[in-house]
């Protein structure tokens, strides 16, 4: 339900609403304009029709008069089935002894005698006459006026009805068209956005896939695909280079370690053995940094297979706490943990590695108390590893994270900078973030490193 509501909201947002309004106004103007045109045409046709009707009635009455005289004419004028049967028609007969009116209050003034013309009837404003009438002089004393009044009200109602219907249909059509347009637009922009998001998260194989209509969207699609192609090629190159770099750099290190192994076995001099052990440890450290840097670059470029599964984060952190507890105890550090069950979609190995890095850092820099908490609220899983060491000043935190990523700290304190950067890389690989904060208000404040991950909601609605 929520999803549908969100979709509709998306369809009706900003641009779409404006499009709907535009459509509506445009369609309405067009429809109204054509109605006006029809109306004007209709008026002309109706007028011509009335003129003809008046002409016909006059000719009929004149015929009656010619064959039967005035008395026959009167009879014809009175006859409801006669030439004046149409209630719109009227007539008047002016004789020497007075006027006789048929369906009209008075004889209109200035009635033309050749063709029916406009006359004011029933006392209306003479500047805007609605009647049509024609006059015929029967003899010196007798004049016949035949006319028709306008049958306007019916047409006006029909027109109003048509206008209202047009309004409703236009609104519906505009709405449907806008929804359809919105749907199409949304679908095409969503495809582009989806690809951009996939690219941003490191899936460089993502391409916008849509049949081409050779429009603006296709232009965008082509550009995005071209960009993705180039990124993909560069990343593949980088991958090849780093893989061969790993091979080239790590093999000599392997030989150094092998040689040191041999030397250690051969020597019986304890001082030499101690020196060899030191060199061996350094070689191991060098190798670890190399591996760390390579892993990190792989993670940061997203060049890692998707091995995410729903992971009980509390269990994962709990296992690590159990792993490190004896070590902490041997150093006089206690680990307190508060673990609230929470599930996140994660690569368990990477996440365990990130958390173990943070615990090792906390052990290194903390004084005597370490907190490992896992909580779940507002759709976010938070893994907080807090120590009671000197902490990092608020203004240095961003630069600290940024600097770490260039391994500056790793140079002075091996492994440490990598640990934090690795944790940040793992967090971002999982669509999460890393937060640095004071662990407490005390002095020294200590450092809290929190990995924030989106919570995993089981069910078909959750997308991978």
């Amino acid at each position, binding site marked *: 339900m929520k999803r549908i509501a969100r979709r509709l909201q998306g369809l009706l947002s900003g641009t779409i609403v404006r499009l709907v309004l535009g459509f509506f106004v445009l369609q309405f103007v067009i429809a109204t304009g054509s109605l006006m045109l029809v109306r004007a045409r209709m008026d002309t046709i109706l007028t011509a029709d009335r003129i003809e009707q008046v002409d016909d009635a006059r000719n009929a009455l004149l015929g009656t008069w010619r064959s039967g005289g005035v008395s026959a004419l009167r009879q014809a004028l009175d006859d409801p089935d006669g030439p004046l049967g149409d209630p719109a028609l009227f007539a008047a007969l002016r004789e020497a002894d007075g006027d006789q009116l048929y369906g009209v209050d008075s004889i209109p003034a200035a009635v033309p005698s050749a063709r029916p013309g406009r006359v004011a009837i029933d006392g209306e404003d003479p500047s805007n006459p609605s009647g049509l009438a024609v006059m015929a002089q029967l003899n010196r004393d007798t004049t016949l006026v035949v006319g028709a009044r306008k049958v306007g009200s019916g047409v006006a109602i029909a027109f109003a009805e048509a206008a209202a219907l047009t309004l409703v249909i236009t609104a519906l059509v505009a709405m449907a068209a806008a929804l359809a347009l919105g749907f199409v637009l949304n679908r095409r922009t969503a495809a582009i956005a989806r690809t951009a998001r996939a690219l941003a998260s490191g899936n460089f194989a993502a391409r916008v896939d849509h049949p081409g209509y050779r429009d603006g969207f296709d232009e965008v699609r082509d550009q995005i695909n071209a960009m993705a192609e180039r990124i993909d090629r560069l990343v593949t190159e980088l991958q090849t280079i780093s*893989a061969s770099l*790993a*091979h080239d750099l*790590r*093999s000599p*290190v*392997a*030989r*150094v*370690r*092998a*040689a040191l*192994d*041999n030397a*250690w076995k051969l020597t019986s001099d304890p001082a030499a053995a101690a020196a060899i*052990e030191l060199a*061996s440890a350094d*070689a191991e450290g060098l*190798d*670890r940094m190399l*591996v760390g840097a*390579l*892993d990190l670059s*792989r993670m940061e470029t997203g060049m*890692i*297979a998707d*091995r995410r599964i729903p992971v009980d984060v509390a269990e994962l952190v709990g*296992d690590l706490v*159990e*792993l*490190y507890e*004896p*070590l902490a*105890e*041997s150093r006089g550090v206690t680990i307190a943990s508060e673990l609230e069950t929470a599930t996140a979609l994660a*690569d368990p*190995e*990477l996440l*365990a*590695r990130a958390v*173990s890095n943070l615990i*090792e850092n906390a*052990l290194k820099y903390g004084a005597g108390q370490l907190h490992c908490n896992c909580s779940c609220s507002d759709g976010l899983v938070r893994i907080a590893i807090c120590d009671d060491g000197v902490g990092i000043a608020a203004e240095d935190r961003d630069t600290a994270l940024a600097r770490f990523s260039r391994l500056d700290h790793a140079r002075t304190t*091996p*492994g440490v900078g990598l640990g934090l950067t690795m944790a940040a890389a793992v967090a971002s690989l999982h669509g999460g973030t890393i937060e640095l904060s004071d662990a407490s208000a005390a002095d020294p404040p200590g450092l809290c490193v929190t990995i924030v991950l989106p919570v995993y909601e089981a069910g078909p609605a959750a997308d991978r």
Partner: protein
Amino acid sequence: MSGKVLLVEDDDRLADHIIAGLAEAGYTVDRAGDGRDGLFLASDNGYTAIILDRMLPGMDGLSVLKALRAAQVSAAIILLSALGSTDERVEGLSAGADDYVAKPFAFSELLARLQAVCRRSGVQQAGAPTRLVCGDLVLDRMKRTVQRASRSVAVQAREFKLLEYLMLHSDELVTRTMLLEHVWGYHFDPSTNVIDVHVSRLRRKLEDAGGPPLIQTVRGAGYRMVAG
């Protein structure tokens, strides 16, 4: 421990070093310098184990591995690679490798894993024992109890697993990485001595129960369980 091992490695110096070490440990070693030779020699069979480099001239290690498995070569195969990432390891293991060692490695690590895979193929035929015995120490895998000289030793679940793994590989070198992998299920290399502390705890518990020490520390390499 002895057996016939094939080493497929293009790096001459590393190969010499490995061959010397393996010979010292009592193995007979043949060497191939590239993938094609390796595949040819390995198909001839008779090897207990094959140590296979991942990056080889001619035919890469993974293809050799797949070809060997497709040809029903049953020798234990350890993949050797400078590519130590999870992806590479999972890819190697799913292609049929028995273990995966990332370069550079300490020779003791390779030897320990070689012994483990060679033994594993033997154990699979014999079936896993439910009672493990090392001197006066008895571990019952069904009842999940540990006894030393008939006295019960209280161990936690993880300590039980740790002891079980050490006893399964008694008289063999077991490295810290192997313990972290098989007892805790982690595939990373912690820079701290986190495993040592667990082992010394377990060792203390066993020694408190009386008797000689059973878990030896092998300097610079790992541990070995030896009947006192």
